[in-house]
């Protein structure tokens, strides 16, 4: 029952009061207490959360597009069903996240509007195209794999509604990565053409997947404060390393080559060491110059515009029949 309506912003108080509040707030976080919607929270904490949750929600929604691109072309009815269920889940996850963001006093409509005018960010990975069927497997395996690495710690995030949404999302996502890997396995064990398709997809998605964890810790602007607030539990580089350590053996099992000539296993450290990431590409895609940024936003905008008369019609109908619709349900 966490609504924006219930969640009127607190009136600012005297500075001394504010310091004391901040201190008490931090003490609650340090004691691993959850912060709930109506609790006092520093404005910066609220804004950081809104930004992060919205970005996460937008990523789910935009993320429906590259995979949705293959629903009509899935090569078996079983794969088609799996893909529809997965893309639909992503819509659901977007909803859970918008729902969590709305508890912070911002309406979904506002957040969506920011996305549509190009002011909100979403995960850059979805600005890459899905060119072959193997991309669908690779997204499940790598992109969802990376997302899960990122998301599991968020289940313990200090903000209650976000943490609860993440618990639900992580539970549902467990099938996403597995189906992707299973799809890759089928291709890897298939014909030479199918294996080539799988390798090509890995070549294209490997580096963008590593970039999903965000800039290197030395360049990440938000990390320190977010970690203090327990909005973030591990640094970008820590999570990236975990992902590489988990994924490289999976690629080897598929008989595929990770497209990083410098990749090697450091036995002493127990970790893989990877070659340099091309951050100029990351920043270019982030700025809007990726292969599909325009197409993704255009698709979201067109759905929004084309749907306006539908949303208006439903609202108008509800207005006309206010009372009777509710009465019909009461029985």
């Amino acid at each position, binding site marked *: 029952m966490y609504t924006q309506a219930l969640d009127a912003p607190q009136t600012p108080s005297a500075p001394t009061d504010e310091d004391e509040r901040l201190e008490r707030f931090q003490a609650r976080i340090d004691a691993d207490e959850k912060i709930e919607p109506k609790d006092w929270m520093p404005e910066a904490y609220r804004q950081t959360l809104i930004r992060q949750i919205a970005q996460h929600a937008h990523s789910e*929604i935009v993320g*429906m*597009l590259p995979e*949705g691109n293959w*629903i*009509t*072309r*899935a*090569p*078996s*009815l*079983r*794969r*088609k*069903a799996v893909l*529809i*269920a997965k*893309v*639909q889940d992503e*819509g*659901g996850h*977007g*909803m859970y996240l*918008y729902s969590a963001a709305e508890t912070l006093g911002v309406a979904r409509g506002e957040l969506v509007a920011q996305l549509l005018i190009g002011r909100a960010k979403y995960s850059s990975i979805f600005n890459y195209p899905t060119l072959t*069927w193997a991309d669908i497997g690779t997204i499940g395996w790598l992109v969802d794999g990376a997302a899960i690495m990122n998301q599991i710690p968020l289940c313990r995030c200090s903000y209650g509604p976000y943490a609860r949404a993440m618990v639900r999302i992580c539970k549902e996502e467990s099938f996403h990565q597995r189906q992707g890997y299973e*799809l890759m396995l*089928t291709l890897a064990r*298939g*014909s030479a*053409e*199918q294996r080539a398709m799988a390798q090509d997809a890995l070549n294209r998605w490997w580096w963008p997947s590593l970039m999903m964890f965000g800039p290197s810790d030395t360049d990440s602007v938000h990390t320190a404060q977010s970690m203090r607030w327990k909005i973030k539990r591990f640094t970008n580089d820590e999570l990236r390393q975990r992902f590489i350590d988990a994924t490289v053996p999976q690629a080897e099992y598929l008989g595929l080559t990770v497209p990083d000539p410098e990749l090697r296993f450091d036995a002493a450290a127990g970790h893989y060491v990877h070659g340099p990431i091309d951050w100029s590409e990351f920043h270019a895609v982030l700025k809007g110059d990726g292969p599909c940024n325009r197409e993704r936003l255009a*698709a979201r905008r*067109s*759905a929004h515009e*084309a*749907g*306006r*008369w*539908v*949303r*208006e*019609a*439903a609202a*108008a*109908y509800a207005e*006309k*029949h206010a009372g009777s619709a509710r009465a019909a349900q009461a029985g």
Partner: protein
Amino acid sequence: MSPAAEPARATASAEDRFEYVLRLGDTSLIAAQRLGALLGHGPALEEDLAIGNIALDLLGQARLLLALAGRIEGRGRDEDALAFLRDAGQFRNMALAEQPDGDFAETIVRQCLLDAWQLETYESLAGSRDRELADIAEKAVKECRYHWRFSAGWLVRLGDGTTESHTRVRAALEKLWRFTDELLSADALDARMAVSGIGPAPALIRERWETRVSAALAEAKLERPAQRHYPWHGKRGVHTEHLGHLLAEMQFLPRAYPGVSW
């Protein structure tokens, strides 16, 4: 040929049963294919979720029915062989199912008219003498009940919403109504299936469909378009131009890389 003109038979021929099950299975498959393409492009996030669920239900029905058709045929074709390796002329879906999604009104009208037909058909088929078909129908009827609830709910909201939505939904209804002829006009195969106790009585389906749809149209403040004779029936393999394009897209991978598994 009227049902009375034919002697009642204990069993229908395998060819008839195959054809008949394809009519049901292909209709669900093609409708699922249409709805699946909408995912991520709906008028609201919540509608994407709803449409995803309906597409999954229809696809599930299609898989069961095509697998059954393959078993009846006995030539080793499974659900995927039937879905991906037949050309348009061999598809037996109702032409209504293959009609494209122009705007949300067309989607809703198509689904509404089809949902009503599927709901009544499966409700009857749940009592079919064909045990396998009856089992599938029993599962499908619950799904169809929800689909109808969704599409009829939207038909009413659009019909009784704004001037724009009313205009759009009326246009969609005018455009798609001719394809309802096929749903309700029983041909010789429908009649033989009814006589053998496998398929529903066509007159019953027509009557119940009419009642259901008329009530929804009335609530939506929409007038029922005039019925025109439209004998080009997808269920006999005579389709609109849309099906070829739909199949070209749907079947691309198995056609381009024959003989491999996915």
